[in-house]
Structure formats: structure tokens, C-alpha cells
């Protein structure tokens, strides 16, 4: 524990150091190098100490009568590993990517502070330190979002982010207030010992879902996420998407599984329902989007939904006493969190290299990059396959575990859950299929096909550091997918500590298979599948090359008899998504298409316009925003009264309160 705190203090030290070095050219390598080293150290500590007994430290910081409590338990270790591996790979990537930063002064001081704050959230063991670290994390990431503040819409993204972050902290503040009760002891130990009445527990749970969900991006609290994540520099986007959402999920798991005590079955409902909606809607948003980084941000929302589904299932199983199934679902949630960190970091790194190479972020202006950037496109492809849950990559392993826990759900005694969970499973399957479509579209439009703009034609491959970070993450996606048993066993102490059950130990199962419940029920062997994929693919490739010609022939493409088709005639991101838009988005987003045909004889091209409405924005945020605006206008004239009027307000309020007290006191 002291080592962890020393490392976190070291990150803050790096943040301070960067202020001194800010004018030097060597500032960026020094800062990112130091972050890389410290994150690797923290990651190693977390990986090694997950099975050990919790250790606690109290520092005389913060509120004088409370102090700052820090605790390293298995759950904290699991998330520390996720945070710091993501931090380390982002720092490695930034060693190369950071050179292209126009204003490093706006990034360098906040980057280590952001990492430190996320670590601090996870090890905090009293409500005050937790909220302090949480708010520090929000503010540091806000500063990073505002790094490119001169670009259009960045200021708006920062504004929306700030509002939603305040809302989330506000909700968590009240949640902790309810959980701690009136006696004012805000250590997590006291909160664990304090039991709430069912009504208050429900309120605290809703507040926790709002607080953690607004940071994680649960629909309908997600509005800031697709604005803010893409606005930041790419390594920060990777951190925000891959890591900060995990910190929010940590907050939910910590409150719902640990602090609130024994769950009731209906506690799982908010997580299950919102998670299901988030998973399906999030990726549907992604399919409607053409900005590469926004696609990735929406896909993050989807994955957060998937993790929340698994966490909700674990709550339901825990409440009904199925400890083994609860451990399965919770392990799946943690495992998917880890996997999402790996592939989403790779994807954002890939997006960053594309932006550096071409200056374009819109997929409709890219294309054909696989020829100019072969290595990074390979990493991007691997991560796309992983996020689309294709075996043998890691995304498949964790989503398969989640489906296994859904298949156990008929054992649940509650009729409501028996009906609800399969429906959630359907949403999850839908989301998985959409995700595959989404990443076929993202990879295909960006890297395949013909080059759409000159900028894309002049792209060059990224530097070594960036490629190293991408390749390491992509290789880990494959490695974890092939050998998921190691990770599952490693996560068991965290699951056991929270739900008092555990999955079968995977190390003892022959042939490196994984078995979620029992061998007679289902098992999965990543290695076997990997071997089969490699063998069949090489066999096919060999056969083609042996029995056909070895040479690569280039010929004019088939133009259906219409000569002179330009690059605009190839599939675009919008046209690839059209079938899904017509089937699903007409309901979800009121999507409409309008064709403008010029009259005969007119040589103007026909125009196809599409219209989308965001129901969440229209029905939830727009009314709130207009109500705030209206009331602000109504109250505005109060700003310009005389001193005497203001005094009259005070006087009348005072007399009113006194009369109230006199009559009913």
C-alpha cells in the first residue's frame, strides 16, 4: 500500500515537474517516460498483490477529523491493473504521438494528474477522499478535453462535460451521504456497517447509478461522452474511453456490491435495464456516425452497457444466493472491462495515427490507408475483430462469459428477472451484431477501398513508439483471447471478495479450456480455435497460391459498363450503414431520407439528404435546457434592482420565516 501511494505521489510530482520543464523541448518525452515507468510499476504491484489480504493506510490529509483512508483490496487491484496498463500504453503511444501536439503546455501538466487521480479513486477508502479524487479526475480530464480549445465545438464539448460531471459528482455525494447516515463517519468501514431501510437503499442505488453512469456514459446520461472523448488528444481519448469509464464502473461495483451490503433482487434492475438499452442504442449511434473518433466513443458507450449488464446479473445472482453464478457474471464484467481497455486503446491509437497522418477525422474523407499504413492498419484490424467479439480474440471470451451467465439466469426465482434477462440477452446479441457491422464499416471505410482525398493519399506510417503501443495492445488482445483462463483465475480474488463465490479454477482444466460453470455444461478453448483459424487460413492461402498463380495482378476494376466512375462511387460509411439505418434508426432516431431530383434537362446532381433526431436530446435535455433558459430570462431583471429592493427581499424573507416559525414552530 505505501508503494502504491508513493507511486501516485510520484505521478503528482511529474505533474509539478512538467510545469517547470514546460518550455523545454525535452518536456514531453520526460513526462511521458516518467508516466510510463510509474504506471508499469503500479500495474506490476496490482497484478502481483490481487490475491493478498487487504492493506489499509490512513494519512493525515483532507478533513482534520477524518484523515484520508486508502485501502488496497482485490477489487482495487483489478482496477489498478486496468488503469495502469491503459496508462502505460497511452504513455508509450504518446512518446511518439505527443511530438505532433501543437500546444503541449495544455496537455503535459494535466496528463500525469489525470492518471494519478484515477489511481486515487480506486484506492480511496473513505467517501471524502473518494469524491475528492473523483472530482480531480473530472477536472483533469476536462482540462485535457479543452487542450485543443481553438477547434470548433471543443468549448461546447467541454461545457457539456463539465455540467454532466458536476451532476455525477453531485449524485455520488448524496449517495454517500445516504449510505453513511447521520452519524458523520464517512470511512468505507463505517458505511459497510451501516444498513439502510429498503426505500433509502433504493434511492442510494439510483443516485449511485446516476453518479457512476454519467461518468461511464450510460444512456441517457451519455450526451457528453461522444462530444468530449473525441475532442481530446488521441492518447487522452484512449485513456478516457478505455480507462476512465472503468473507474466509473468501479464506483458502481464498489457501492452496489461492497458498501451497500446484502442486495435485494430489484437492485439489479437499474443496471440491467439501462445496460441493455445502452448497449443497443450506443452502437446504433455509432453506426450513424462518420467521424472516426466519435464512432469509437459511441462504441465505448455500448461496451459500458455490456459491462453494466454483467454487473446487474451478478447483483441478481448474489441477491438470490447463487454465489457461483454471481462470480461468473462479475468476473465477466471485470474481464470485459479489461478487454475493452485493451482494444479501445488500440482503436483510439489507430485513430490518432490516422489523424496525424492525414489531418482528417471524417471517415468519408479517408480510405485506402492500408497501403500507406500497413502496420497500424493491422493493429486496428485486430482490435476491430476483438471489439466485434470474433474468436479467438479477447472480446469473444468475455462476451461469451456474459452470455453464459445469461444462460444460467432461468435458475433465478424471481419471475420478473426470468422474463427480463433473456430480453436483455437479445439486446446484447443485437448489440454484438451491430458492433461487428460498425467495425466492418469503420475499418473498411478508413483503411480499405480507394483513397478518397489527397490528404489520405499522402499519409505516412506512424512513428515507432505509436506502433509499439498499438502492436503490444493488439497482441495482448490476441493473447488474452487465446488464453483467457489465466486472466479469469487472476480476477477470482476480486469476485470472491464481493460475492463470496468463485468460478471453477481454470488452471486445472486440461488443454487450456475455460469452463464457466461446469464442464458438462459448456466450455471454450481459445487455443484450439486459434489453431484452427491459423491452420485453415494458411491452408486456404497456400492452396490458392499453389494451384493458382503466385503473381499479384493489377487490372482495371469492373465499372458495370459505366466508364469514369470516381472514388465517390464506392461504398461510403453512410451508404454502408443505410440498411441498418432504414430498419432500426427510423424507430430509434426518427431517421428520414429525402431525395432531391433535379428536373429533366438540369445537369445538377441528385441529392440524398438524411435526417436524424436524437431522442435523448430531444425529450430529455432540450426541455431542461429551455427551462433553464426561460427561467434565467425571467429572473434576469432581478439582477438590476436597487439596494433597497434587495434589502426588501431579505426583510420579507426574514419576516416570512419568523412568522412561519411563530405560527407552526
Amino acid at each position, binding site marked *: 500500500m505505501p508503494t502504491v501511494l508513493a507511486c501516485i505521489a510520484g505521478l503528482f510530482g511529474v505533474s509539478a515537474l512538467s510545469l517547470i520543464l514546460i518550455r523545454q523541448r525535452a518536456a514531453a518525452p520526460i513526462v511521458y517516460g516518467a508516466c510510463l515507468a510509474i504506471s508499469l510499476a503500479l500495474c506490476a504491484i496490482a497484478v502481483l498483490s490481487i490475491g493478498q489480504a487487504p492493506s489499509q493506510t490512513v494519512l493525515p490529509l483532507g478533513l482534520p477529523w477524518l484523515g484520508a483512508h486508502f485501502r488496497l483490496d482485490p477489487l482495487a487491484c483489478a482496477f489498478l491493473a486496468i488503469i495502469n496498463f491503459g496508462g502505460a500504453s497511452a504513455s508509450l503511444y504518446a512518446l511518439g504521438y505527443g511530438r505532433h501536439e501543437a500546444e503541449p503546455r495544455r496537455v503535459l501538466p494535466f496528463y500525469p494528474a489525470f492518471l494519478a487521480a484515477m489511481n486515487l479513486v480506486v484506492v480511496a477508502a473513505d467517501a471524502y477522499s473518494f469524491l475528492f479524487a473523483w472530482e480531480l479526475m473530472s477536472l483533469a480530464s476536462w482540462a485535457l478535453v479543452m487542450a485543443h480549445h481553438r477547434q470548433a465545438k471543443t468549448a461546447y464539448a467541454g461545457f457539456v462535460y463539465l455540467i454532466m460531471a458536476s451532476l455525477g459528482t453531485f449524485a455520488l455525494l448524496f449517495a454517500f451521504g445516504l449510505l453513511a447516515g447521520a452519524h458523520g463517519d464517512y470511512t468505507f468501514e463505517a458505511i459497510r456497517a451501516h444498513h439502510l431501510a429498503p426505500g433509502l437503499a433504493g434511492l442510494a442505488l439510483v443516485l449511485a447509478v446516476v453518479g457512476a453512469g454519467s461518468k461511464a456514459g450510460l444512456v441517457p446520461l451519455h450526451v457528453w461522452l461522444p462530444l468530449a472523448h473525441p475532442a481530446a488528444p488521441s492518447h487522452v481519448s484512449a485513456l478516457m474511453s478505455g480507462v476512465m469509464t472503468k473507474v466509473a464502473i468501479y464506483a458502481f461495483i464498489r457501492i452496489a456490491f461492497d458498501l451497500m451490503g446484502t442486495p435485494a433482487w430489484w437492485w439489479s434492475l437499474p443496471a440491467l435495464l439501462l445496460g441493455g438499452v445502452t448497449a443497443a442504442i450506443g452502437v446504433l449511434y455509432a453506426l450513424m456516425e462518420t467521424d472516426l473518433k466519435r464512432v469509437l466513443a459511441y462504441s465505448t458507450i455500448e461496451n459500458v452497457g455490456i459491462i453494466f449488464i454483467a454487473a446487474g446479473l451478478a447483483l441478481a445472482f448474489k441477491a438470490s444466493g447463487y454465489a457461483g453464478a454471481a462470480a461468473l457474471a462479475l468476473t465477466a464484467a471485470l474481464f470485459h472491462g479489461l478487454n475493452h481497455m485493451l482494444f479501445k486503446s488500440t482503436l483510439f491509437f489507430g485513430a490518432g495515427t490516422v489523424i496525424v497522418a492525414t489531418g482528417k477525422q471524417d471517415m468519408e474523407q479517408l480510405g485506402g490507408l492500408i497501403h500507406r499504413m500497413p502496420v497500424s492498419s493491422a493493429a486496428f484490424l485486430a482490435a476491430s475483430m476483438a471489439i466485434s467479439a470474433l474468436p479467438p480474440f479477447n472480446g469473444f471470451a468475455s462476451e461469451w462469459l456474459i452470455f453464459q451467465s445469461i444462460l444460467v439466469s432461468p435458475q433465478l426465482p424471481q419471475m420478473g428477472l426470468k422474463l427480463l434477462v433473456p430480453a436483455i440477452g437479445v439486446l446484447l446479441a443485437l448489440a454484438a451484431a451491430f458492433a461487428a457491422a460498425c467495425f466492418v464499416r469503420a475499418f473498411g471505410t478508413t483503411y480499405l477501398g480507394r483513397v478518397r482525398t489527397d490528404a489520405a493519399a499522402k499519409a505516412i506510417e506512424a512513428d515507432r513508439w505509436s506502433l509499439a503501443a498499438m502492436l503490444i495492445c493488439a497482441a495482448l488482445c490476441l493473447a488474452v483471447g487465446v488464453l483467457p483462463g489465466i486472466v479469469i483465475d487472476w480476477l477470482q480474488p476480486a469476485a470472491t471478495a464481493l460475492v463470496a463465490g468463485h468460478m471453477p479454477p481454470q488452471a486445472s482444466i486440461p488443454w487450456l479450456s475455460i469452463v464457466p460453470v461446469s464442464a458438462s455444461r459448456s466450455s471454450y478453448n481459445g487455443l484450439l480455435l486459434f489453431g484452427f483459424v491459423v491452420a485453415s487460413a494458411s491452408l486456404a492461402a497456400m492452396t490458392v497460391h499453389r494451384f493458382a498463380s503466385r503473381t499479384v495482378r493489377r487490372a482495371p476494376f469492373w465499372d458495370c459498363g459505366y466508364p469514369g466512375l470516381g472514388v465517390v462511387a464506392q461504398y461510403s460509411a453512410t451508404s454502408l450503414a443505410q440498411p441498418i439505418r432504414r430498419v432500426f434508426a427510423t424507430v430509434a432516431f426518427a431517421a428520414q431520407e429525402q431525395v432531391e431530383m433535379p428536373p429533366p434537362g438540369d445537369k445538377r446532381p441528385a441529392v440524398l439528404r438524411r435526417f436524424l433526431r436524437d431522442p435523448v436530446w430531444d425529450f430529455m435535455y432540450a426541455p431542461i435546457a429551455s427551462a433553464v433558459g426561460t427561467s434565467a430570462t425571467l429572473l434576469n431583471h432581478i439582477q438590476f434592482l436597487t*439596494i*433597497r429592493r434587495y*434589502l*426588501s427581499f*431579505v*426583510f420579507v424573507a*426574514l*419576516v416570512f420565516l*419568523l*412568522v412561519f*416559525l*411563530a405560527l407552526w*414552530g
Partner: protein
Amino acid sequence: MSPLAFDIAHMFAGGLVLVSFMMLYQDRLLPLINVLSLHSLLLALSVAWQANVQDKPDLYVTAVIALGFKSIIIPMALRRMVVRMELHREIEVAVGTGMTMLLGVGLVALSMDLMLRVTAGASALAREDVALALSVVLLGLLMMVTRRNAVSQVIGFMSIENGLILAGTGARGMPLVVEISVAFSILIAFIVIGIFLFRIRERFDTVDLHALDRFRGERR
């Protein structure tokens, strides 16, 4: 506590309320300043009596401040300002005097009713003192609300402050009374300065003193 001591404390506190009513009634500025001086004098006497009764010599400091600063210096300064600004002929009331007096009577009744009920457990002296002090505060606030002139608002504010000090000294065992009264005196000084800055701003749309120079036709 002897009945005589109680009666004398009661007399001073009641006197303060009475003088507050005189303030409400007085609509010319120079007599109003005299009434303020009387108000502060009564406060000083009351605090000194409390110091005597409670055996707390530090309260004499508060009494001396009330007497010297608020009963002599500030009224003199205000009088000079009023004369210099030629306000001493003005008569100003925003709400009619009779109406204001009626409202004041209602406020005193309200504070009596409330405070005597709320402080049922306290000593008799403290109860009376707090109830009368709240009346003084409310009357001062009423005065600030009903007057337009900045000087009479300053006077209203000072009578509020007198009421607060009365409450503070009457309640036995209240800590830092002396310090609070000193702090309030400084606050008053700032308010007096602030009001005049406001007046400058209202007249010249700025608190920049160069504006005054420009207005007087001076050049640098």
C-alpha cells in the same frame, strides 16, 4: 441576580426599542443622526451594565467602542457629510410614517411572541434581552427598507448592529462578543465608505476617481 439589576437591564434594552421607534418616526436627517447617537449611547450604557452584572470586564471595551465610535465619531462624520452635501433640508420617506410605525409594532409583537416561546429554557434576563434585540434588528431592517437616502440606510444598518451587540452581550457565556463588536465596527466603517463610493458611481457611472477630476475640469 437581584431584581434591581434585572430591571435596569430591562430598562436599557426596552429603551433601545423605544429609540428605534423614534428613528422610524424621524424623517429629517440631522435629528435622525442625533437619534442614532442616543441609540448608541443607550447601547453603551446597557453593555456597561451587563459588564457590571456579569462581572466581565472585557465587555467594558465593547461599551467604550459603542460610546466613542458609534455614539460620537460616526454621527459627527455623518453630520459633516450631510451638511456638506446639503442634504440636511431634505425630508424623505418612502412609506408613510404611520404605516411604518404600525408595521414596527407588528414586528415587535412578532419577535416577542417568537423569542419568548423559543427561549423557554434560558434565564429571564437573556430571554428579555434576546427578544428586545430581535425587535431592534427587525426595526432597523424596516428602516433600511423604507428609506431611500443612503445616509438613513447607514443609520438603519448601524441600529441593526446595535441590536446584534445587545443580543450578544445579554446572553451569558457567548464567546468573542468583544471581537465581534470590533469586527462589526470595522464593517460599518467599510459600509460608510462603500455607500459613498456608490454615490460617486451613481453620479458619474464609475468609481474611478479620475472621473471626479474630469468633472471638476482638472487636467493632468
